[in-house]
């Protein structure tokens, strides 16, 4: 018995040790990023090597925050992430309502097409989508970017899964009482599926906030850049030798911060959303 207790104790300590080392490895790039903010260029290039900065000059860093004008990129990203996702959810909600509660031969066929597109890589559509946007006069506009995000196949799948679990008797009761389809959707289906909406919102927001390739192709005006583009611009403008690592790290930290905060606040939605993505749970 005693030997077993010791074994258990050693096992548990070993596990914590392994996890502690791994956590340090995983978190290290973030730690390095934040330390980098406080390092001067001299400190970065000097020998012997330094891990911690000499001073934590918070006031100096605050001054650089205002100096690098990074706020507008973050605002653009938030605008696209919030407005774009809310409109997308509204459009998806209407579509999914028809797919789930008003099925018919045509709606089933349309859904089969959506199903077929699910796994396909969006990137292969970039050239024609670029041409279509420019014909519509929406190239290089945030509205155009949000428009291209409207047909979100993942959102259809997720809401459909959730809607299908809604008891049909509620829908029928509402319809018999004379509620229109819109009223049924607004006052019965939507409130009963709120958590699915939260999950899709949070996942889509983060996905659009992090998105880089498509926005970098279709947005050319620097005033309209999203965070990732702004960050890249910031990174390449000085060239490799004039690199001001401390400012680059500051801009990176400002970019990451909102996502980390959102992640910590909305853990629950993230985890259920990701598990559902596969249809495994």
């Amino acid at each position, binding site marked *: 018995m005693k030997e077993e207790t010791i074994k258990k104790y050693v096992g548990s300590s070993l596990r914590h040790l392994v996890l502690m080392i791994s956590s340090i490895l995983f978190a290290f790039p973030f730690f390095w990023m934040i330390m980098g903010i406080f390092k001067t260029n001299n400190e970065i290039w000097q020998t012997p090597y330094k891990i911690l900065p000499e001073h934590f000059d918070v006031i100096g860093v605050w001054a650089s925050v205002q100096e690098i004008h990074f706020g507008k990129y973050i605002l653009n990203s938030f605008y696209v992430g919030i407005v774009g996702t809310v409109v997308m959810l509204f*459009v998806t909600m209407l579509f999914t309502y*028809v797919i789930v509660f008003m099925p018919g031969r045509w709606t089933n066929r349309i859904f089969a097409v959506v199903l077929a597109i699910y796994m396909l890589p969006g990137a*292969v559509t970039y050239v024609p989508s670029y041409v279509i946007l420019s014909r519509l006069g929406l190239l290089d506009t945030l509205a155009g970017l949000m428009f291209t995000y409207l047909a979100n196949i993942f959102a259809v799948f997720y809401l459909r899964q959730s809607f299908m679990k809604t008891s049909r008797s509620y829908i029928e009761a509402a319809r018999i009482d004379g509620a229109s*389809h819109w009223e049924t959707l607004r006052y019965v289906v939507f409130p009963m599926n709120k958590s699915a909406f939260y999950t899709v919102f949070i996942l889509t927001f983060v996905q659009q906030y992090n998105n880089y*390739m498509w926005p*970098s192709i279709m947005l050319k005006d620097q005033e309209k850049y999203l965070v990732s583009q702004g960050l890249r611009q910031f990174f390449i403008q000085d060239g490799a030798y004039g690199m001001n*690592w401390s400012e680059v790290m500051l801009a990176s930290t400002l970019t990451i911060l909102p996502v980390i905060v959102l992640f910590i606040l909305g853990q629950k939605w993230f985890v259920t959303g*990701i598990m559902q993505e596969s249809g495994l749970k």
Partner: protein
Amino acid sequence: MKNDMKVKWVFMLPFMIPLLLFWIIPLASAFFISLTDWDYISPTFNFVGIENYVYMLTDPDFIEALINTFYFSVTTIVGTIILGLAFALIFQKKFSGSRVYQLIIFSPWITPTVAVSLVWSWIYEPDKGFANYLLGLMGIAPLKWLHSSESAMLAIIIFTIWKSIGWTMLFYLGAVERVPQSTYEAARIDGAGYWSQFFHITLPLISPTTFFLFIVNLISTIQVYDQIQMMTQGGPGGSTTTLLYLYYEKAFQNFQMGPANAVAMVILLLILVLSLISTYVSSRFVHYD
């Protein structure tokens, strides 16, 4: 009933218009463009049939991109799956503090690739980067990391594994939790040790998840782009040019729309085949009971 039909259309159109404009029409046009010599600037183009595809097969840039993509995908997936499973096994029994560790391991996955690529390119910096400092402490000669065609892909792979372990771990965590405890108890009574239980119970029972993770990770690694654009721009000497990066170069830097879309069709075909295999296998061999 007639009224219902009207409602259907009103409800579906706002979704169907962008679906048509940015999915269905582009997919068809991309295929069509791949059969032409269009250069984006001129209003006219010639229909060249399968010439772009024939050229592609003899183009060393394309062959290299295909090999790079394959090498990147397989290495990243093997690393991600082994480490993701290892962490899931550590977390198999709940203990105090496990949640915090999980959050830390998962956090790289949700952060923007562009932002974390920047700090990694500093870590990989040959003269004053942390990676070489660490190698120095262990007495290993420094590497040139992103600046050498021999190590650049390795650097990108390490970065990508770091970023994707958390997601894979989360799926494995769900899978190992679903293995019935009674199976383990029965095995213990028969005298099976930890590793024997792992190889004879856990591994076979979670194989559907392993298969799923393999396919999904393959589909996403084939489309790697952000970190390549940030860290190497396909270099040095094309050593990190993957299929999607080649597509970007051909389409949006060289305006060779025909060849670019031929590359896109290859990417599309690869992913289509993978998702068909996945659907077929999971409908045939995986039972959820």
